[in-house]
């Protein structure tokens, strides 16, 4: 699998994947200043770092990260999504960036969804309110 790097290069290249579950220092740094980036973690430990604005396309993630909520997700900038596997979350992240990229465009091209993934992704979309 490849890292999600926006095609046009306008969005930062940091949204790479880490396999390291115990990267606590990163979380601490995020706690001190609300970062421009947030981390989404799948149930099998894949981490995806993407711009906050893109992540907040999802209503569920937006509410998790709302600073006034005082949820631990909001404090650390790190959302652990226990119901999603890495493969599904990868596709979700792809959608979030795709949505962000195309929000000001007419006639947006469809995103490619592999048929074998679409039921799982459908459940994820329902859960994430995207």
């Amino acid at each position: 699998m490849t890292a999600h790097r926006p095609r046009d290069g306008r969005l930062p290249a940091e949204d790479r994947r880490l396999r390291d579950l115990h990267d606590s220092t990163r979380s601490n740094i995020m706690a001190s200043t609300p970062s421009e980036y947030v981390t989404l973690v799948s149930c099998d430990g894949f981490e995806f770092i993407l711009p906050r604005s893109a992540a907040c396309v999802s209503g569920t993630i937006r509410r998790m990260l709302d600073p006034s909520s005082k949820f631990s997700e909001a404090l650390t900038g790190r959302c652990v999504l226990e119901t999603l596997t890495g493969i599904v979350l990868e596709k979700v992240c792809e959608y979030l960036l795709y949505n962000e990229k195309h929000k000001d465009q007419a006639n947006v091209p469809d995103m490619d969804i592999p048929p074998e993934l679409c039921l799982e992704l459908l459940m994820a979309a329902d859960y994430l309110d995207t």
Partner: protein
Amino acid sequence: MKHSALTDFLASNNISAAQIRDDYDRRVAEANQQANEEAEHNEDEDEGDEFTPESPEDKAKKRKRQQTIERIKKSKEFARRKSKSRRTGEVDSDDDDDILANEMANEKSRPAPGQLENCEICGKRFTVTPYSKTGPEGGLLCADCSKNQVNNNKKGPAKKRGSGIGRRQNQSKLLDGEAIHGAQSLLEMCIKKVAENIEDVEEFGDLPPPVMRRLSQILSRRRAVSSKILNLFLRRNHKELNIYDCARLETDDYHRILALMPDLTKLNLRFVTPMKDHIFHYMIENNESIRDLHLDSPNLVTDECWRQVFTKIGPRLQSLKLWNLNAAFDDETAQVMCDNCTGLERLKLKYVEKIGDETLTAISSLKTLKYLSLCLLRETEPEPLLQIISSIGSNLQSLSLEDFKNADDRLLQSIHDNCHQLVKLRLTNNDLITDSAIASLFRNWANPALSYVDFHGLRDVDMSNPAGPPDPVGLASDGFIALMEHSSSKIESLNIASCRHISCDAYETVFAENKQYPHLKELDISFNGNVNDYIAQRILACCPALTKFVVFGCFKIQDLKVPRGVVVVGTVRAKLSVEGILQDETL
């Protein structure tokens, strides 16, 4: 010279290592020489194709080739390819025949399946098969390179869409109320993808009911709900079933629905032509929980069966919606319905052919009714409607009376006097109700602001007098102003299509600088010819929540600045510019 152990061993067996090396060197030298000769020879041959051959050997070769070409020209394959190229519109002449035959002769000189050949891309030696692909230079490719080539080709040709198709798809999306800028939601994209691949789905899993409903809508629209796909929707733990097109289901499928979902409380099936009496009998005997029964066109069910249904399960029905009944369901059945459905809160009867005034009178006895929607095909008198309003109007939250041609101003007066809880009001297609009656309905009405108003087709129809009578008939300026004053705070959906006597001044008053309709989401002003660019722009400014703006037949709208998120439907050759959107093509 020092001998190795191996050389010694070979020598003891009378084999000379030197001999072996010499033999090897000789073979290599010979092979090189042969390869060089061959290369030169090939070059000669290539030149021979292009230039006039001189040597007798070349002449023989040319004759042979000529024969091959003649043979090819007679072959079936040649005829087939010729007709193909003719179909594709290429000019057909003798020259082309020669070119085609030459092409085929060259193809024939390729290595036949089974022979060895070097791959054009990677240079590897491989066995030629019928599936070997041709490389970019015309040579053959090995299995791996062939595969890559196919993959590249698949991605290669980008979908090219003519501007006409793009426009048509845009219009289709507009009619569905979909904004054409920005990305769709992931949920919607996934639902569409699932619907596309529905044949491969084995089970839906725990999809939530709203998603199931949306899937059903998409599949129904494609008329794809067959017995097999119905199985996906039959979930024992679900309490409702919505299938919007049952045209491909058979009588047995209805049995299965009832048998597999015994806890069903809401049954919503449309286009249920094969539904017969015995399914209702089964329902009466086996299902104890159905409260909401919505059926479109169950025309094989007899009156007798309907009456049985109402006497048996009538008391527990909370909502009943029936559409398109013409073979059965008469006034007497309706009377049985009204006598037995003592808890009915919602009633919708649309395009039911055999009922008329008597049914209307019977409906006025349904004291529990909160939502009433009627659209009859028979002509009715105005009095039974008055009776309905006066006896049950005070409970009604929703009142929809479509196509009651004979309803008059007394109806509005009665609504004004009796209805005080209405949220939704629909009165359509009538040319007796006057503007002043509508105005007085809304002035000093005890009813709170309405959310949903549909007055389409309330207008005078007189071809010889397009301006209408001096005292306006239908929803005109005065009524419109009164309506919007009364309901401005809550109105969400407004349909005033064809109410063409509303003046420009009235529009300007209603959508003036200081007016706001904060909740208005859908507005239909089709065939209101007075609406021009200025008024349309005022409307967009006064309705910040607007999502759908329908303007069929408003030909004065030519140039409109549309805020984001608003879908404008029905413009003709108008220039629409959407704020902050990079527009690829004009609509």
